[in-house]
């Protein structure tokens, strides 16, 4: 029995040592006093866009684990499922404010940030989103504690519109919003750019809250009644990749032709894979990256299967909070909402130390300084291929 115990203890020690060494290529270790606190993550972990939220959750969990090990902190991550619904996000936010969480990763959707931003602002809770891209979120002044590690739609929208104009050269474009703030914001940015280039724009709307037969009927009807042969490009800046996939299948079923152009919400290699389509995003593809940090992230999330571009920015958002908490502890303070918020405002993470590949630093409104956009083409096998220097 004694031998078994000795063996088990030895094995546990070796395993622990192994775990430590396997993370040597992950975040750099720094000396700091140990500190305990909690943060929360708001995301859609269930519902129609759960694939997006779960990806964010897995990357955030990995970041917490890696930076806890690297900075000798003891930060726990509480999960709050918002289902991408503002009313649920408000309820969850009230619960977070009543809890001991010092900062928040998320929420995912712009419409959710609109709903919860003033609440977090009043409570002095820093919240860093890895996917809310509506420009007004940072410029309206209503969300004083909001930060994001991704470019806003004023980057993504023009990038997409210009790529369509310069490379796909359509005479007319069908552009469909999903009746949500995120989608309508992108349409509002892209439409005048396309029109200015002499492209005729047919703007339609479908209801993002529809499901099943009703949703399918809506998408199929748009293909039937709206998509003309001249509209060789259809822009689908939606939050549901499965809807974009269904739309693409409807186009094929009705023997029509158009190139689909999705945005970050449709970025899901497992769900939106209509060959010939394009998807823009705010996060890089790190699957073939060579840096130690990127490799550690890729191997850390491998067990969850394929992922899109939502995870990497959320890792970066979590990293911002973890580093802010570590800096507070290094200064000999106990993490609180106010000192973590102050530390987040001073964030400056070098490109080599975060997976976004750019310096993470925030402007006064919470926007990232100098954020680039990313673009992918879906090849004949349904694989996402990065388009560099677009």
């Amino acid at each position: 029995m004694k031998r078994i115990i000795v063996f088990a203890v030895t094995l546990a020690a070796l395993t622990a040592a192994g775990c430590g060494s396997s993370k040597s290529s992950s975040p750099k270790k720094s000396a700091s006093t140990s500190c305990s606190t909690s943060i929360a993550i708001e995301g859609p972990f269930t519902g129609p866009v759960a694939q997006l939220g779960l990806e964010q959750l897995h990357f955030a969990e990995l970041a917490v684990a890696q930076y806890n090990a690297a900075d000798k902190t003891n930060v726990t991550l509480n999960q709050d499922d918002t289902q991408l619904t503002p009313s649920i996000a408000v309820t969850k936010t009230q619960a977070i404010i009543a809890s001991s969480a010092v900062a928040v990763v998320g929420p995912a959707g712009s419409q959710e940030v609109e709903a919860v931003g003033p609440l977090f602002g009043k409570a002095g809770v820093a919240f860093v989103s890895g996917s809310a891209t509506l420009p007004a979120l940072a410029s309206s002044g209503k969300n004083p504690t909001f930060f994001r590690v991704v470019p806003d739609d004023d980057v993504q929208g023009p990038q997409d519109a210009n790529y369509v104009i310069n490379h796909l050269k359509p005479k007319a474009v069908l552009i469909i919003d999903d009746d949500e703030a995120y989608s309508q914001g992108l349409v509002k940015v892209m439409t005048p750019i396309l029109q200015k280039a002499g492209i005729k724009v047919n703007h339609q709307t479908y209801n993002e809250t529809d499901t099943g037969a009703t949703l399918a009927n809506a998408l199929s009807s748009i293909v039937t009644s709206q998509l003309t042969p001249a509209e060789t490009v259809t822009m689908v800046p939606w939050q549901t990749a499965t809807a974009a996939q269904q739309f693409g299948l409807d186009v094929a079923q009705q023997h029509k032709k158009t190139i689909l152009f999705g945005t970050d919400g449709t970025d899901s290699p497992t769900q939106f894979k209509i060959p010939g389509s394009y998807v823009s995003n705010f996060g890089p593809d790190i699957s073939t990256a060579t840096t130690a940090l990127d490799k550690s992230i890729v191997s850390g999330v491998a067990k969850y299967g394929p992922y899109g571009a939502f995870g990497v920015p959320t890792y970066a958002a979590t990293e911002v909070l973890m580093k802010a908490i570590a800096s507070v502890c290094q200064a000999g303070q106990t993490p609180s909402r106010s000192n973590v918020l102050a530390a987040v405002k001073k964030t400056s993470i070098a490109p080599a130390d975060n997976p976004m590949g750019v310096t993470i630093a925030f402007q006064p409104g919470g926007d990232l300084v100098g954020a680039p956009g990313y673009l992918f083409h879906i090849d004949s096998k349904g694989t996402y291929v990065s388009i560099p220097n677009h």
Partner: protein
Amino acid sequence: MQEFLQTTVNGLQTGCLYALLALGYTMVYGVLKLLNFAHGDVYMVGAYIGYYVIRWFGGPTALTIPVPLLIVIMFALAASGCGLLGMAMERFAYRPLRDAPRIAPLITALGISFVLENSVLLLFGGFTKSYSTPSFISSTNGIHIGGVSIDSVEILIIVVSVAMMIGLRALVNRTTLGKSMRAVASDREAAEMLGINVNRTIALTFFIGSAMAGVAGVMSGLAFNEITNTIGFLAGLKAFTAAVVGGIGSIPGAMIGGIFIGLAESFSLSYISTEYSDLIVFGILIATMLIRPQGIFGRPPLQKV
């Protein structure tokens, strides 16, 4: 013309699914005077059974059996699974409340709806599940005439739905079980006095209605690919609207009501607005309640004097 015909095809496909669901609502209402708001979630369970049958036989890209056989197995398992689920709901949730005030089973039905939705969430996760139908049934197969496309899944849905509706009508009008169902619907106590096993009749009514919902769930998955634990809510509401518009309690009413709502939705999407189609469909419900509360095929209630 091409757009009109394609819109009609879209509407017929959706309408057939609503009709199959509406039949479940109307049958249960007929025998129990209960609005079974969990019926949409039975449809969702049927869609999940179909999904796991595909997985069981190798997945959409590596099926180990021929596609027609797969579809038959999906229908059979979804129908029997959902039928048994319907019977269980009746036995354990509604039967104990049969003599309770009508609000009690109505609230219970809403509760069961949430239980089913969240049970599926817990058991199978929040991820959208994909039938990936184009991997084993080409979406470009089917009939393509003059720019109007009817793919093989749409044909399957329309044919199977019409066959099931005809079968149900024959069952209700020409079999002993159908007579029992009509007797129980007409006067439960009198039917019991005449020797009809009311409990068995009601249980079988739930079985048949739920089985049809299960088949509709599978067809929904085949047609629209993506399923989640929430797909039953809106479909259930639309089917309820169809049952009311057709005349709740009337089997032909549910069929016609379902197809009418599907077409109304499709035409409003194509010709009026993609944003306001739900408003139009539920506006039809309100208009029906105001103008003809008994629905198209319903009869006004007799008042005893």
